Structures are given as structure tokens and as C-alpha cells.
């Protein structure tokens, strides 16, 4: 899981960077808010693709924590499922703060 998400992020970043180079598009100095990224990609803005790659990378450990919780659940280790959900709650708080941006 961890590996595939890394590859996905790397590919998105590489495509965004190559597209920026071909278009002679300077790198943006800020990452767009979540909700503006899809529209910016549809508007053929290569910086938005780089932003998306960065966000995928930032979310990779969150998905890892989710898959660890599922694994503990499959093993019937309820105590560690609860602990991992606690970790996810803290990470979700951090993401929620960024959504309120």
C-alpha cells in the first residue's frame, strides 16, 4: 500500500514537473486549497498537478495508518484498533485544520 501510494505521488509530481518545464511555467509559490485543485488541473495548470502530487504524498501515512487499523481489526486486536483510530483522529484533526484554511 505504502509503496503504491509513493509511486502514485511520484508519477503525478513527475508529470506535473515535466509539463511545467515543457510549458515554461514557473513553479507556484503556494499550494492551492484542496477544493481548487481539480478545477485548476482541468484549466491545464501544471502547478495544480504538482500540488496534487504533494498532497498525495502528505496523505500516504494517513492511508498507512488506516490499513494498519484494518489489519489489527482482521486479527481481532481490538485494543490496537482503538489505539490506531486514536492516531487517525489526531491526523484527521490536522487535516481538518487545513480544510478550514
Amino acid at each position, binding site marked *: 500500500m505504502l509503496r503504491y501510494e509513493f509511486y502514485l505521488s511520484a508519477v503525478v509530481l513527475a508529470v506535473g514537473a515535466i509539463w511545467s518545464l515543457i510549458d515554461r511555467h514557473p513553479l507556484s509559490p503556494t499550494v492551492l486549497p484542496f477544493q481548487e485543485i481539480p478545477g485548476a488541473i482541468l484549466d491545464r495548470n501544471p*502547478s495544480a498537478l504538482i500540488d496534487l502530487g504533494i498532497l498525495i504524498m502528505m496523505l500516504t501515512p494517513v492511508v498507512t495508518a488506516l490499513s494498519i487499523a484494518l489489519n489489527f481489526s482482521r486479527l481481532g486486536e481490538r485494543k490496537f484498533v482503538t489505539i490506531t483510530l486514536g492516531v487517525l483522529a489526531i491526523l484527521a484533526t490536522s487535516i481538518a485544520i487545513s480544510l478550514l484554511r
Partner: protein
Amino acid sequence: MVAKHKGELRAINSYEVERDPYLVDWTQAIELGMVSIGAAVLGSMLGLGGGVFLVPIFTLFFGIDPKLAIGASAIAVVTNSVVGSTVHLDSRFTNLRLAMLLQIPTAAGALVGALLAVRAPDRILNGLFGAVLTYAAVSMFLRRKVSHVDTSQDPDPMMLGGVYHDPASQKEIIYVPRHVRRGLGISGLAGMLSGMLGVGGGVIQVPAMNLVMSIPVKAAAGTSALMVGMTAVATSFVFYADNKIDPQVVLPAMIGIFAGAQVGSRLTRKVRTDRLIILFVLILLYLGFRLILEALNIDLPSIR
């Protein structure tokens, strides 16, 4: 002259900006990428991760705003952790139960630390970073002993024990962490520093796991490698919310840290790092003192 802020750096480069903004952006990105490779090579040879060198170098020699440097470093730490964790998970060095338990205070500390950092004056962050680098240098110089306590027969009421195959000794290593409550407290502190400074926190966590909790170094490093990524996530989203994630800095840092960590891990196998330790300690001390002087507003002749 060293530019104090990114805006000033751009102003210094205004001639070039007028000439070709595209060229300036990508030239600076390549420079940052090369420096990040060097930071990651040093960091991985020392087992500290690249973030410890990235923020001071970006701040002192590129005039990048410390908060932008911390945001970039946090995402570079995530990248490094994602790549490193896959290796450690395959080798079964990562103790997932222990990682998740210690991650609660670490992530909470990182969230609080990041929220403090985005509001803290740059001088405070520079001073704190300088102090952490000085601590890392001193502890590295003094750290010659590694704890090898056999805890395999200890009771394990919390089910936190682990087992892995050690390729060096060709043995199955069984261990049970000790002093878990103390470990939780140290993790909270490591998380807060990590959140404030954008470093992984492994610089505190790995020695603490080994010396305080009697966890073998390989298991401590493997467990920490997974944890630092989750810790840096808590940090990076807070910096993202505060508009402190700059792709012009983040992209070269991510690529550089990834490439440098690959080179560093290969070099570590070939080069006797213990022979280079004094040089590394001096580099850490130099960067630490420069940041402390910066925090105290004492100017030194610029390098760049």
C-alpha cells in the same frame, strides 16, 4: 549578503527575474535539490534523516523563510519515511503495535508544536533549532554505547514485544519494551519538537527507545522510520493551512531527500561513518551556533 527572507532573496535576484522568471525559478529549484541531496546523504549516514540539515541550510544559506523551510522539511520527512518504512516493514524491524501506541503522544505533540510554530517568531524557531542541533552534536559525540539488554524473558502484559531476524548475527531477536510510560512521555516531547521544527523526531526517539525502553537499535530505527512520517503529516497539514508549503522549495527538497537517502544508505555500507563522526559533529555544531547567533541577531559574514 545573506537574505533574511525569501522576498529579499527575490529582490536580490530582481535583475534575473526581469530577464527570465522561468530560468530563475528552475535554477533555484536545482540548487535547492542539490543541497537537499547533500543534506540527505549526511543525514542518512548519521541516521538522523535529512530534515536536521535541510532547515538550517535553507534558512542560513538560501535566505528562505524558516517556516517555509520547516514546511518543506516536514514533507521531505514524509517522503523519506514512506520509502524507508517499506524496507523496514519488509525486514520486520517495525513493531506496529509499539509504533501506534507511541504515535498517539508523538502526533498530538507534533500537532501542538506545529500550531505553536506557525505563530512563533522566526528568532524563536532559529534559536530552538540551534539548540536541538547542538544537542544532537553533543549526544552524537558522547554516544558510543548502545544498549544490548536481553528482555526476551520479560513479561509482556501490553503485548508490545517484537521479534525480527537479525542478518548480522543470523539470529531471531526477541524483545519486550521496558518503561513504556517514560517512552510515551519522551515521544510527546519528540513530537512537539518535530512539529515545531519540521524534523522527523528520530534524533530523540531512536536513542530513547534504545536506552530507555531497551529496544534493539534496528527495531527502534524501523519503528521510528514509520512513526516520523505520520508525525510529519500532522505538521505538514498545519503548515499547509497556514500557506507555508511552497512547491518551489518542497519539490526540490522531496526529490533531493529521496535521491540523497538512496546514496547515503549505500555509502553507509561502504564508508566507516565512525571515522567521519567528528566532521559531522563539527558541521552540526557550526549550523547550530549559526542559528543561535541568527536568533540573537548577531550577524556573521555571509557565505553565499
